[in-house]
């Protein structure tokens, strides 16, 4: 998450730099008394770059999409009891072979 956040901040910085350049360009045009039609080419490039970076950050920062299937693996609503009161150790499991692959989900 942090790298995407940094990318977003960087995109915003690029946009603010583009704002400042456009303000300067405008005051420059006022001196020459010309019409403002569109910002200069490098400002447009900066805007596109800022848009792409902010797009990436807006999609990556808020977090992953969670599955809404009730029977998908990450949506298990039943897990083995983790309560210590229910854990007994003096049972017949002692007689079983030692390494059993148990799938535990806490």
């Amino acid at each position, binding site marked *: 998450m942090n790298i995407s956040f940094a990318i977003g901040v960087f995109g915003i910085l690029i946009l603010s730099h583009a704002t400042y350049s456009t303000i300067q360009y405008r005051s420059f045009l006022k001196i020459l008394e010309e019409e403002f039609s569109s910002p200069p080419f490098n400002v447009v490039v900066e805007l596109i770059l800022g848009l792409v970076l902010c797009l990436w950050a807006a999609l990556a920062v*808020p977090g992953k999409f969670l*599955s809404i299937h009730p029977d998908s693996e990450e949506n298990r609503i039943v897990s083995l009891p983790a309560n210590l009161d229910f854990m007994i150790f003096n049972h017949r499991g002692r007689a079983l072979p030692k390494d059993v692959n148990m799938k535990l989900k806490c």
Partner: protein
Amino acid sequence: MTSNAGSEIEKKSGDDNLLPTMNAENLQANMRTIYYSRTFLSIIAGVIAGILGLTNLTGFVFYFFVMAITSLGLLAKAKFSIHAHFDSWNRVVLDGFLSGLMSFVLFWTFAYDLVHIF
């Protein structure tokens, strides 16, 4: 068997309903994610439209363009498997549209004033 949280809602079977039950918490979390993404991108689109000096209809066309790109991005983020994460297409494509429009116009006028008028 103990059961944890995770409320399930029983959706009344409609016409062509593929998911009779779903995990409502996760659905809400996904909706919140879409909302954040769209709001942030509406603000960014407003700032860019202000800097470019777009006026009238061109600005709104730009907003729809950015929202279309956002929808594509959200589809790509969900890896095109909409039914695993949402219950209908409308949620991904149309959801935060109008609320984003307000933020867009606000930041559009703000940036336009900042750059072109003052």
